[in-house]
């Protein structure tokens, strides 16, 4: 069985632990053994930079080193964790001096950042680690009669050097949704507008103004549900008229799980799936 290290960001702990359950079930359904990187710490969330950017490099070098110690690649379903960890990897791999300084401190914990582990997000995990054919084979039933609008979220498409798909014309999410038996609404107004999550705790009104835009666009285009890979986008956008789910929740249902078993019952906006 293939193994992968699960990086537990803030949206997989505390009251959000159901997101971890969704993730581990998703991996089980795909025939992958998920190893929780227990001593991993916050990726920085774009906020620790406001105290010390070098700490962000340090924390994520340590997070990757924890995966490397287990001999596995690192996987996180969160767009922001993915982007920040992938950016750190680029910084460390292109700056031997920084890498050496960080490794000197990591040695205290018996860790070393080698730069060998790959960084995966759900989208590129399905394409490059699991393989689209294996993914399709793992699906057991169709979720029919539902129109789904794919919503990527920003941090899997920007900045360009960490994008998991062609930023000009991403198709990966559509390719992941179609085998589920749903009808994909590929184009809609404001489909690339940010969910605003990262303004939640500083300017909540700004977040609210943004979060509604892609949802309204999807509704206008006839979508029943919006599907995002990102738990933060999900958190920011859930609770409005148009429902939003994580794509891994839909995959788990197509693999035979009930909506309750993959936390769909926790959605603030009710979702009806005909299965």
């Amino acid at each position, binding site marked *: 069985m293939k193994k992968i290290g699960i990086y537990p960001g*803030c949206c997989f*702990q*505390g*009251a*959000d*632990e159901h997101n971890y359950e969704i993730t581990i079930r998703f991996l089980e359904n795909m025939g992958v053994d998920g190893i929780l990187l227990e*001593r*991993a*710490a*916050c990726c920085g*969330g*774009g*906020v*620790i*930079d*406001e*105290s*010390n*950017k*070098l*700490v962000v*490099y*340090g*924390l994520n070098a*340590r997070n990757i080193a924890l995966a490397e110690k287990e001999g596995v690649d690192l996987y996180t379903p969160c767009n922001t964790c993915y*982007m920040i960890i992938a950016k750190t990897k680029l910084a460390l791999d292109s700056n031997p001096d*920084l890498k050496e*300084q*960080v490794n*000197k*401190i*990591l040695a*205290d*914990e018996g860790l070393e950042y080698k730069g060998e582990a790959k960084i995966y997000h759900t989208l590129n995990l399905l394409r490059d680690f699991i393989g689209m054919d294996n993914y399709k084979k793992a699906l057991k039933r169709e979720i029919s009669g539902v129109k789904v609008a794919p919503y990527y979220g*920003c*941090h899997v*498409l*920007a*900045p*360009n050097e960490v994008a998991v798909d*062609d*930023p*000009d*014309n991403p198709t990966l999410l559509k390719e992941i949704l179609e085998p589920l038996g749903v009808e994909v609404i590929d184009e809609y107004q404001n489909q*690339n*507008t*940010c969910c*605003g999550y*990262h*303004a939640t*705790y*500083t*300017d*909540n009104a*700004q*977040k609210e*103004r*943004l979060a509604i*835009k892609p949802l309204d666009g999807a509704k206008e285009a006839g979508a029943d549900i919006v599907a995002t890979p990102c738990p933060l986008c999900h958190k920011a956008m859930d609770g409005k008229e148009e429902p939003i789910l994580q794509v891994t929740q839909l995959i788990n249902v197509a693999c035979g799980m009930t909506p309750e078993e993959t936390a769909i019952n*926790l959605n603030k906006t009710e979702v009806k799936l005909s299965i």
Partner: protein
Amino acid sequence: MKNIKYTAKIKRYNPEKKESYWQDFEVEVEDTLTVLELLMYIKDKIDSTLTFRSFCRSAICGSCAMLINGRSGLACKIQAKDKIRNGVVKIEPLQHLPVIKDLVVDIDPAIEKLKKVKPYLEPDPKKVPDNLKSESLVSPEEFAMYDKQTDCILCMACYGQCNALEGDAKYLGPLQLTKAFRFIMDSRDGMDVEERINLVENSGIYECVQCQMCLAACPKDIKPAEDILGLRRIAKDVGKDNSATRRAKFWFQTVYETGQIDKYNLPVASLEEDGEVIKENMEKEFKERGLKEENFGPQPFDGIQDLQNFIKKVQKEVK
């Protein structure tokens, strides 16, 4: 070099009729054209009324920024053939600026916002001599603090793709904030740092959603979103007390204590009274879900001291 066929799908705007519409141009052209050369070809051979702004053709004047396949960039710097998707290259004017005609936007509103950050040096008399005989020296280390940011050509590519502007038209904008950061970091600048922060505090640094689209847009590889984090750090260091600086302190503290951010107590820590409602709603929801109070936030993992020692050492030793 060979000829290729594709469709240039261009969003046009007729100012007399105040009407915008998409128009498809079928072209068969050399595969070496830049997007700007493609537009010139269409203007020359197909439709002379097509209007766009350009000058240097060398990615230095910053005139030809536009959206190509929905992403901001300079038309003169991008190869058209690299942008063909399903036989189509989609070209639109920048967002968040009034369209004058077709692909030409009015950049004045963004320039007016730029003026608000005082985008010029206020010479520090201790650093900048008052005569022409002696030099104003800047060390390579000092210049490295804002070297990249001086490459900005005011093309507005970042502005035309900014999500914070999508949420609030009054937001200053990425290039404006990068400029503010650049002058704070300039060792020759004499303006009080707090005064410069005051210029960007309202409708400024805290509305940025860190979407990273400005990094993807900039033709000079400047990273405005990262400069905005730098401005927030400076705001915290000069003692500003607001939702963002409180968030930054609380975030760091709880990551240090538990390894993870405490999102249950964060709203009150950062938004104060406004956060109470958010916390009450969460408490209600969590209790309905049958969660125990100790599971509302993160718990430190075994060996948290190792992480704390690591963070302390990184702060002290990594340069």
